[in-house]
């Protein structure tokens, strides 16, 4: 059977890794290469690497940095941040990304999803959907590293990206991000019920029980987490032992 994946998220800004709260208040948490090497030794299921400064500053992905990281990364890696064109996708795959995450550009030019899937296959096109809850708790899709609202309902947008050929969704709650109070279960449940492609739940993980909660109460295929690995003693391996003890299939 397919195993639930535990995915550390690495956020890259300027020269190193950062972690914030609700996509703000960034703290430096070390060097990217060092983290990749550690996760490689620990044989984590997969890594998500996002350059959060690229889109807000209008830059292309940092291919050179990613090339170096990928050379030290013998595990699957999803790379995002600043991806705008077919050439960006091609170049990221060429330097070692297994999947490419697209957020803002997918909203601006949805045909990028369709063209990317046609050229490289659906399986490597990951659409990153950031969600803010507005008035009355209504979920809204956000772009530009959470700064702008796209005026779209995340569930409808998820269905649309699946229809266009996306192979996976990285679903992040902006408010929950860094708060370590648990995933937005309602959001993950609604999105996973609406699509048939895999969904990675992201934003809010503070302990292993939060992972178990989202994996049992929704149809999420994977959980992403950052703060618990940066700021606590908790590890992906211990997380998997906990999940296995709670009847969730993981790779040990």
């Amino acid at each position, binding site marked *: 059977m*397919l195993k639930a994946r535990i995915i550390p998220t690495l956020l890259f800004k300027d020269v190193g890794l950062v972690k914030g709260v609700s996509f703000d208040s960034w703290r430096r948490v070390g060097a990217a290469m060092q983290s990749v090497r550690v996760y490689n030794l620990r044989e984590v299921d997969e890594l998500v690497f996002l350059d959060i400064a690229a889109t807000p500053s209008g830059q292309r992905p940092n291919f050179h940095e990613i090339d170096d990281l*990928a050379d030290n990364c013998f595990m699957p890696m999803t790379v995002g941040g600043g991806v705008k064109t077919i050439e960006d996708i091609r170049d990221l795959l060429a330097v070692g990304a297994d999947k490419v995450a697209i957020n803002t550009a997918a909203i601006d030019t949805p045909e990028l999803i369709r063209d990317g899937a046609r050229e490289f296959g659906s399986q490597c096109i990951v659409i990153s959907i950031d969600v803010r809850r507005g008035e009355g708790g209504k979920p809204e899709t956000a772009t530009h590293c959470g700064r702008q609202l796209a005026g779209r309902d995340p569930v409808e947008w998820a269905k649309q990206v699946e229809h266009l050929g996306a192979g996976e969704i990285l679903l992040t709650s902006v408010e929950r991000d860094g708060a370590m109070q648990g995933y937005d279960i309602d959001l993950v449940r609604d999105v996973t019920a609406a699509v048939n492609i895999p969904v990675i739940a992201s934003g809010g993980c503070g302990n292993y029980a939060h992972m178990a909660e989202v994996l049992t109460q929704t149809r999420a295929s994977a959980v992403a987490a950052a703060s618990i690995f940066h700021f606590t003693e908790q590890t992906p391996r211990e997380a998997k032992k906990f999940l296995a003890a709670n009847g969730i299939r993981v790779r040990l």
Partner: protein
Amino acid sequence: MAAGLTVVVDYGLCNIDSMIRALEECGATQVERTRDPRQVDRADRIVLPGVGNFAAAMRNLKDWGLLTSIKARSASREVPFLGACLGMQLMATSGEEGSTAGPIEGLGLVDGEVVKLQQQNADERIPHIGWNEVARKGHSGLFDGIPEAGDFYFVHSYHMKLRTESAEAGRTPVCGGFTSAIALTDKPIFGTQFHPEKSQKNGFQLLRNFLAV
């Protein structure tokens, strides 16, 4: 150590670097990426990696003259060949991905067709992404030293439907079960639907087994 020239065929769509680095880690002494048919002609081993769309990949292999070289070299019994992910799918007789006008011809190294995975229940998601087990079939040696039903990393929406069952070297229990590894009985020709280069210990052992053929 695995001496001789191992070429990794670059058809313009793949994450070639990971495969090259993994082969080097596994003891291949001379690994070269190539788009040049002449390099394929002199290779001691050929690796066709994954990622991309079947139609786009076949178009590039044909246009760049690689198709003829790969077919000629793999027809001999001396040149081990490994296709990974899309690379395995390309070994089939035909594939339906990326074509609206019927199946597209593949390399024809193995008798089978590449078709879309079919979801059997709401818990199964397509693409099939993540770690899943491979139950070995036959005695190919591809899985020597790897725990039975060991996990490998998959990321794909299509799979190969074999017409020659004897070529099946591994099977994975999703979407009703599909062929996740192939090995011909009369030639050193192998394929894996998963990514050995991304499958850590199990994947590296499989690559070492291939290099030792």
